């Protein structure tokens, strides 16, 4: 299968400029958004999904649960050719498919409509179960949540069940920028490990470390990667 080519080959260094098309700001360094490095490493080196395979049953699924501030997500999707770069300047406008929260029915490659916190991980659990029930053993399901989003009880329902059920094809990335008001004493990974998950905590800006954590084997267990980034200003 040939991969649909992006308008040109975008690199990580181009993402700041793409984000700038949405925000109007010229100086968007990568550090301005907590999810950018995680998203780039996933889409560049881990996820088996391209614009050409975005509707295939056997594709990997990436569910952005933390729908707030989706500019990094849109920049990466545009860079990888899921939709044209010239959609970006319309961000948030009436005629644009790109809202301040993503809508799966409007944007190619977007797996869920998100914004309200605490829905992505349960939907990911259901997706992993649905793929397994259809005998699709290969596709991986990835969901990205934030450390404050982990406050939502629905996520605890999902992580407890997924660990117990041994959903091996389920992967969660927690962007940890210390934004949860009451924090997670002992670290976020311990919550998942206690529920039977495989867990790794890494520097969320370190691409090599992220890639190693994303691709670590975790037989019989779901896997969480806690990506530590600088505290939200």
């Amino acid at each position: 299968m040939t991969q649909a080519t992006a308008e040109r080959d975008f690199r990580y260094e181009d993402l700041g400029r793409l984000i700038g098309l949405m925000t109007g700001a010229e100086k968007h360094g990568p550090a301005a958004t907590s999810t950018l490095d995680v998203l780039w490493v996933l889409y560049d080196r881990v996820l088996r999904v391209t614009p050409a395979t975005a509707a295939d049953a056997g594709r990997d699924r990436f569910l952005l649960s933390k729908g707030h501030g989706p500019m990094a997500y849109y920049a990466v999707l545009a860079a990888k050719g899921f939709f044209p770069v010239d959609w970006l300047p319309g961000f948030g406008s009436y005629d644009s498919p790109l809202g301040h929260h993503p809508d799966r029915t409007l944007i190619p490659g977007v797996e869920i409509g998100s914004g309200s916190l605490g829905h992505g991980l349960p939907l990911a659990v259901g997706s992993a179960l649905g793929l397994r029930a259809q005998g699709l053993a290969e596709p991986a399901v990835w969901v990205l949540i934030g450390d404050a989003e982990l406050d939502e009880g629905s996520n605890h329902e999902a992580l407890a069940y997924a660990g117990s059920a041994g959903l091996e094809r389920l992967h969660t990335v927690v962007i940890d920028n210390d934004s949860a008001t009451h924090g997670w004493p002992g670290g976020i990974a311990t919550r998942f490990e206690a529920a039977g998950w495989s867990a790794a905590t890494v520097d969320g800006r370190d691409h090599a470390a992220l890639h190693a954590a994303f691709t670590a084997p975790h037989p019989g267990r779901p896997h969480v990667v806690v990506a530590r980034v600088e505290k939200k200003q």
Partner: protein
Amino acid sequence: MDTMRERFISVTSRLLDEDPRLALVLAEITMDGFLPAQRRHPDRVVNVGIREQLLVGVGGGLALTGMRPVVHTFASFLVERPFEQVKLDFGHQGTGGVLVSASAGYDWPAGGFTHMAPGDVALLDTLDGWTVHVPGHPDEAEALLRHAYAAGDDKVYVRLSQQSNTAPRPVEGLRFQTVREGRAGVVLAVGPLLDNVLAAAEGLDLTVLYASTVRPFDDAALRAAVRSAATADVVLVEPYLAGTSTAAANDALADAPHRVLGLGVGRAELRRYGTIDEHTAAHGLDPRSLRERLTGFLRPTLR
């Protein structure tokens, strides 16, 4: 005769054998009845434990992968507790599934208000595009469940109850049926309240329509009944919150003067235990109370 919930177990277990697209999600409730089906289909009969937000979210995730999820628990935990999941994990995603409740209205009076959900249909009415089946007999429940499972990617709610009419009626999951015709008014009986309505209307010159599917509301049937009754007086008798379908009836009759009386379960919490019959009487839905309320509302035309 089995109950609707028992019929749900038998028909769903059978259809899980026949339709590989179906998957059942449970949160402990009714799990015992599905143990044989779970042994046959461990990947398609999933019990998530006592986790109702996850219950609905998992249904939504299954639908995202192209399956037809059947999601079941008591109505209060299926529609009320995880309401945002119902709203977002199906409707906003542009997917569908089948929600099957038990114990909606006051099926377990001794259990108290925590296990009652008279507002389930009214709550779903705030969302777009949900089909709502309210079977009045276990045979109707089976027919409507089969319709719901086969309904592509539609969003369908099937409201099962301990309460039942003595005999089933043929249902096809769409239209209101005319049970009897009269001149002095139209009574729409929903689901298990048909027997009480027919008893209450005995000897009165009334049209009785029967609905086992209330959403979409059959505007054409109500308009036709009103036309042939030669009066635009309509009484709705629903086994859930009184007035739930009043707006739908008003919309159906918007082009002509009319009167609508919505009867059903009262909004006020009774704070009583007891039996189903005692609660039916307390809400004024037994035949004697219904007859008084019908004749009171229709007095000018019945005279």
